[in-house]
């Protein structure tokens, strides 16, 4: 029997071995090496500009090399973001390490800072002429009190609209707002659109999307949704999202709801959430305008996702979820993985209930849940489906209900307690006299004797 310290040593050995297995060493090395080359060449070009005219042939080789190095890095990462933070330089969040002898000669941060610039994002490759123009403009001293705007305009005039300039960065200092669970759920939910856009942009360009920004949002979402009616809040926040992110975010939120209801730990919930956020990546392959048939979307995302190196349980289960979430629970090929079964329920529910252009949803939320309930043990895992049903209730958020007393109401809550399973909190849309209330009015269907006599199908 090992003692406590020995057991700790064994655990730490396992932990480190596991982390090593999860690492994508090749990518990190490639980014560091090629990123250092890009930064070093840009730095060198700016230093050369101090002593040479830009039409000097001495620039030819380094300009060509910089263009080529930048192209290679873009091929690997997509947009390349070079950020100078205090004394460090980062390429897409990976800090570069320079030779200690070389380090004092790196003045890139200072050269950019005089323009109020802390970083540049290169969205597209640059031609030799463009590189020379970039060096000329960055080298030239600013003439206005808004140097960054001035430089940005000059770059645009030189045909480099794809370049983005970022302000001077510093590390956040202590005392600033922490990302604490006190964050408003709606804000976290909306911020998911940015993470989703990053993922979609990467996949559209045929690159591997990083799960890390999504994971951070999902973790915030898990914290922010704790103890709240997250489904109702997500439904309420849905219209504020850009359309491309609505389905993805809702499926993510519903998956988290089911996962939490099924008793998954937070760490697993985060993995499930990232998987849900990635579930339709296959539809994005090939970029805007490209069309992947829906029936093939589960498989078409695999080639992109497989490029992530390193064994990680989250990656493994994400791959399965993306690949299997379209299958029935009774699929002849075998029962789909847990995350796939969860996402399948969330996905179908949102597909059935999400409003479509020019018309409302396919079915109302109560009808959707009733139809899905009939598929327990067929299309869906019956246990997970019951978890979902128990949480979302008979009249899930978004249901438009006519009550026996003549009220027309909108369900704005999911199940708050077992007693409210068929009695959600509702916002009054129309009073019995047929008039909409002047101010927001609510009816708690669990509190009174209100009886639902009809479920309306919402229209566009």
């Amino acid at each position, binding site marked *: 029997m090992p003692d406590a310290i020995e057991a700790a040593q064994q655990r730490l050995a396992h932990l480190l071995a596991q982390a090593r297995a999860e690492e994508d060493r090749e990518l990190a090395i490639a980014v560091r090496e090629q990123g250092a080359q890009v930064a070093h060449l840009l730095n060198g070009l700016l230093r050369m500009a101090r002593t040479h005219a830009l039409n000097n042939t001495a620039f030819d080789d380094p300009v060509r090399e910089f263009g080529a190095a930048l192209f290679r890095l873009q091929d690997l990462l997509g947009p390349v973001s070079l950020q100078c933070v205090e004394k460090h330089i980062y390429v897409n969040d990976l800090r570069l390490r320079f030779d200690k002898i070389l380090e004092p000669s790196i003045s890139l941060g200072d050269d950019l800072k005089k323009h109020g610039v802390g970083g540049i994002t290169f969205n597209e490759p640059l031609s030799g002429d463009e590189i020379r123009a970039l060096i000329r403009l960055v080298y030239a001293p600013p003439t206005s009190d808004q140097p960054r705007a001035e430089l940005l305009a000059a770059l645009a005039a030189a045909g480099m609209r794809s370049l983005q300039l970022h302000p001077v960065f510093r590390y956040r200092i202590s005392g600033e707002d922490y990302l604490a669970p006190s964050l408003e759920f709606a804000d976290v939910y909306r911020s998911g659109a940015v993470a989703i856009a990053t993922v979609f942009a990467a996949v559209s360009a045929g690159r591997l999307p990083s799960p890390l920004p999504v994971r951070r949002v999902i973790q915030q979402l898990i914290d922010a949704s704790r103890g709240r009616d997250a489904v109702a809040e997500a439904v309420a926040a849905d219209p504020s999202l850009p359309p491309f992110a609505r389905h993805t975010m809702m499926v993510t939120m519903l998956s988290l709801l089911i996962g939490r209801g099924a008793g998954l730990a937070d760490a697993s919930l985060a993995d499930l959430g990232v998987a849900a956020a990635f579930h339709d990546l296959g539809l994005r392959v090939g970029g805007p305008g490209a069309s992947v048939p829906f029936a093939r979307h589960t498989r078409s995302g695999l080639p992109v996702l497989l490029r992530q190196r390193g064994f990680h349980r989250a990656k493994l289960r994400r791959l399965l979820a993306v690949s299997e979430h379209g299958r029935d629970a009774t699929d002849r090929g075998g029962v789909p993985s847990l995350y796939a079964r969860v996402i399948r329920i969330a996905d179908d529910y949102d597909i*059935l209930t999400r409003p479509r252009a020019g018309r409302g949803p396919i079915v109302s939320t109560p009808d959707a849940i009733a139809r899905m309930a009939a598929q327990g043990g067929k299309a869906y895992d019956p246990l997970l489906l019951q978890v979902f049903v*128990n949480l979302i209730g008979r009249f899930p958020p978004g249901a438009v209900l006519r009550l026996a007393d003549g009220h027309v109401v909108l369900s704005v809550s999911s199940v708050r307690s077992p007693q409210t399973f068929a009695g959600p909190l509702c916002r009054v849309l129309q009073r019995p006299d047929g008039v909409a209330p002047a101010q927001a009015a609510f009816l708690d269907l669990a509190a009174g004797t209100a009886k639902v006599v009809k479920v309306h199908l919402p229209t566009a």
Partner: protein
Amino acid sequence: MSGAPPPSGSDRDDRDLLPGQAAPATPGAAETVEDAIEAQAGRSARGKAASDALRALAHTARSFVLYDAGNERIRGFLQEVRDRVEHFLRTYGELVVEVRPWELAVDGEVVYSEPDRERSLAFRLYRDGVRRLTFHPELDWSELVTLVGIMSIRYKGIRTQEDDIVTLLWRAGFSGIEMAAVEGLVASEEDATRDDTENPRDPFGPQNAAQAAIFAAPYAFDYPWPTFAERAVVELRPLAPGLLERIAREDGPESLPADCLRLARELAAALADRDDPLALADVTATLREVRDYLVGEERFDTLVEVVRAVAAGAAASGARPEPLLAACVDADTLKRFIASIPADVAEAPPALLELASLVPGDLLTPLLDLFEAADGRPAPAVLQLLAVQARGQAPRLLGRLRQASGPVALGLFRLLAQVDGAAAAGAAAELLGRGAADLQLDVVAFCERTPYGPKIGRALVVALESESAAVRARALAVLVRQRERRAFEPLLERLKRGTGSGFAETEAPALGEALARLDPERAMELFREWAKPPGLLGRIVPGQTMFRWAAASGLAALPGPESEELLERLARGASEELRRHAEAALARARRGAGKPHA
């Protein structure tokens, strides 16, 4: 947590130090000179205790760069972390650490300072956005170990696509440690102010051009919907905790091997997909990761299923199976498998044999390496695998055998004999000419049980030259039994050359008898010669005496009047020992059945 009370913070250095001020390098106080820089900070007793705890934490996490987790020094460091953190929490209660770029502070008092960013715990936390860590008094040892692990991952420079330090800390789900974090970077204040006035940035809008393209792209939600016409009553059905246990199990680490298999099947099927075929390189890279995981967890049973699935997928898709199988199982996999088999298991597990049969490429070399590493006495599983892998590989085995000695050579010869008797017979003469006695005995034993032929005969003749009397005797017995006439001359030569202590008594009679049995006529001629009374020289020269010993035994094997006469002659003019030997031989000859020498 428990543990011995730690020495007070002042044990290392009683002086109050300013942040960054070097502490004296007292023996045992620091690992290296550089450690002295990470000096104890904190002026108050509480600050010093916090400093001790945090420096121990930093030092321990960093030490994984140098040492393996099992190292004795790590043990000491862990004990120190445990003692010092526990001491603080027990004495002062909650430890709230504010993270600054180069420092850690408790209630504004700097308790940790390290200017070297590569070594600084503060910088590593700060860089990833951690701004406050709170250690609660109820913090247990297990959580502290996890924290050390997370820190050490960062110190070792391990960077995964999936996690950073903030997500790792969050994922750990600590109950005794709280973390507050920010996004790592922010626009500088003066700049941000101006920026905001000029062009307020929407935190929920696109942050760059690539995102903007996604935000701006036209989008229509046109997903096909599930056409379920049937409806069921929607009811609340409480779920017993036991029911949810199935979900928990499926989500637990114990189900990861099954997920690996599921993914392997998925990839194998996708290889055959005509619309979206996967690139072989992507599949093989993922399979290698799966393999490494399963091997690390010693889930070889699942690995076999993975290999089967991949082989089936390759067959269905028409893909070349070799690169796929090579990704699933390699020589290292088998080595790990073999190492995992308990020593008392005599049979190789079927999974191992199946995996070995599916490994493309050379397995013999690594197996022979294992064989040699075990000094020729490897696990039974290795022998079983070798027996399969060495078939048709006699030249390679022989190559190794020629380089080997001792038990390795012995084992290799046995293996060779097992897999290719003809090759072993061919090599027998060579081995009998140079090997050690135990190997030679084994080779002779092999010769004994192998159908007799020229190669075996030649080898046994060579064995007559062995330095080992046991080898020579055994080889001789076989040769005689086989009536190998070609051995006559070498035997004679051997007899002529035979000198040295004990030769006459042990071997000369045997050689004489062998000569008689191999070629009675030629032997009789020799015996006649040797039985003549020795001259003066013959009495003193040992070789002459040996001939007479040999003749006595040989004549006993050739019963007849002449033999009896010659034996009587031998007995007459001999030494006491030889006389007794000759008389015994005579008695045997008279009985008409000269029994072979023992």
